[in-house]
């Protein structure tokens, strides 16, 4: 698609990946982009690179802007993960940078990936500045947003933040700016990205947002390493990150379950009925037919979680164990929930689910409900009551 001028002297030179559908387990139904940026001033700097197979695209875009790629003076590596850093070795060989700016962990990480200790690394810390001519680059370390090596680069003269993974999303588009994309699709993808990538590091997101405030950074444009460039909805995306990283959620309950012989499924439907009758939004997800990436985006936005599993060989069904393990690692917080499930022998599933609730610091609104073999009409009434109870608690919590 060619390089795209973002501002005078600042260009997008990345690549659009229309065909990726599995990004280390994250389902990317709408593809993604690997964004790299070229700043042309008295000195020329390249911000991040691309996934290794897209190296030639990156180089073609660079040549389009400045001709000879060796004119690039500095390589600035905000994040080393291979979707941005995969092409670093080839890029270093092609552009022969005078200096490579990165954090300490960035240097150690690049040595870990490429085993080249003699590259011209310059370690930077929060507050360090690099003068490129008319423009300055200010570095701000953002450890664990997204990896230990992560940092962001701010260009005060242009009020522009190069934010690596923060504020990004997996969304391939033929245009580069937020106002040129479908707003609903865009925000779905942003929420999905936050839920599946950024959520564990919410306390660090709060710190980063505070640092932006304390340093009084005026931001007119955010250039992330994935997806669109924010110029119209800067306020909205920062507000969304603030809301998500404070674990604010909507008055909504998800009933997430799997079933062996339909008993747990009947219970799930009754729980769902109870929530709906209480007048709040509910969604039902059977894990054997649900996409975990999409479901995590729903978990992000919902205050209440009812988890159901049949007991299989004294444990959870593998689909439920798999999703709850994935979810636990993403550290959702401040949820309300309870567990349910049917069993035939000793019925441990509810106990295991309660442990997951404890580990995710979910407030357990009821000790859980187990049914042996198949639920009676009375059992289903009890499930409905528990659905109502959870809905009430969710309503109370969300109205505060």
């Amino acid at each position: 698609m060619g390089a795209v001028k973002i501002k005078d002297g600042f260009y997008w030179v990345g690549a659009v990946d229309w065909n990726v559908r599995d990004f280390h387990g994250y389902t990317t139904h709408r593809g993604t982009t690997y964004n790299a940026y070229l700043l042309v001033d008295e000195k020329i700097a390249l911000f991040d690179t691309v996934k290794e197979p897209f190296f030639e695209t990156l180089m073609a875009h660079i040549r389009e802007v400045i001709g000879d790629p060796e004119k690039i003076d500095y390589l600035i590596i905000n994040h080393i993960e291979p979707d941005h850093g995969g092409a670093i070795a080839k890029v270093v060989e092609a552009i022969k940078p005078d200096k490579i700016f990165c954090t300490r962990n960035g240097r150690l990480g690049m040595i870990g990936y490429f085993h080249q200790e003699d590259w011209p690394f310059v370690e930077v810390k929060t507050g360090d500045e690099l003068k490129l001519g008319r423009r300055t680059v200010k570095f701000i370390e953002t450890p664990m947003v997204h990896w230990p090596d992560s940092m962001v680069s701010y260009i005060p003269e242009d009020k522009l933040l190069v934010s690596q993974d923060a504020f990004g999303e997996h969304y391939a588009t033929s245009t580069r700016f937020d106002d040129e994309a479908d707003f609903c699709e865009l925000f779905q993808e942003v929420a999905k990205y936050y839920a599946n990538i950024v959520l564990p590091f919410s306390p660090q997101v709060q710190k980063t947002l505070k640092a932006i405030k304390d340093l009084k950074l005026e931001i007119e444009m955010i250039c992330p390493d994935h997806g669109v460039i924010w110029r119209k909805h800067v306020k909205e995306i920062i507000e969304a990150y603030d809301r998500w990283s404070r674990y604010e959620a909507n008055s909504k309950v998800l009933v997430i379950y799997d079933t062996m012989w339909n008993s747990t499924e009947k219970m799930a439907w009754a729980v769902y009925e109870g929530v709906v009758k209480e007048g709040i939004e509910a969604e039902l997800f059977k894990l054997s037919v649900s996409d975990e990436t999409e479901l995590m985006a729903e978990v992000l936005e919902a205050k209440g979680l009812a988890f159901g599993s049949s007991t299989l060989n004294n444990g959870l069904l593998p689909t439920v164990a798999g999703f709850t393990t994935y979810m636990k690692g993403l550290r959702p917080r401040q949820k309300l929930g309870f567990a349910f499930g049917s069993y035939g022998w000793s019925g441990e599933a509810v106990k295991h689910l309660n442990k997951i609730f404890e580990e995710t610091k979910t407030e357990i609104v009821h000790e859980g409900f187990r049914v042996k073999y198949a639920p009676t009409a009375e059992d289903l009434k009890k499930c409905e009551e528990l659905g109502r109870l959870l809905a009430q608690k969710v309503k109370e919590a969300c109205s505060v």
Partner: protein
Amino acid sequence: MEKYQCNVCGYIYDPAQGDPDQGYPPGTAFEALPNDWTCPVCGAAKSEFSPVKG
């Protein structure tokens, strides 16, 4: 009481602040944290921490 830093992500455990989110109040010495305590930032094990010098 000594501060400890996570070798993985750089987080500093300050006993004066403790780790209230994981149930360890201000004033908890690093040594008093259980062995299965993990870095509140990146999840690394307690054994990944080193004393902060100076």
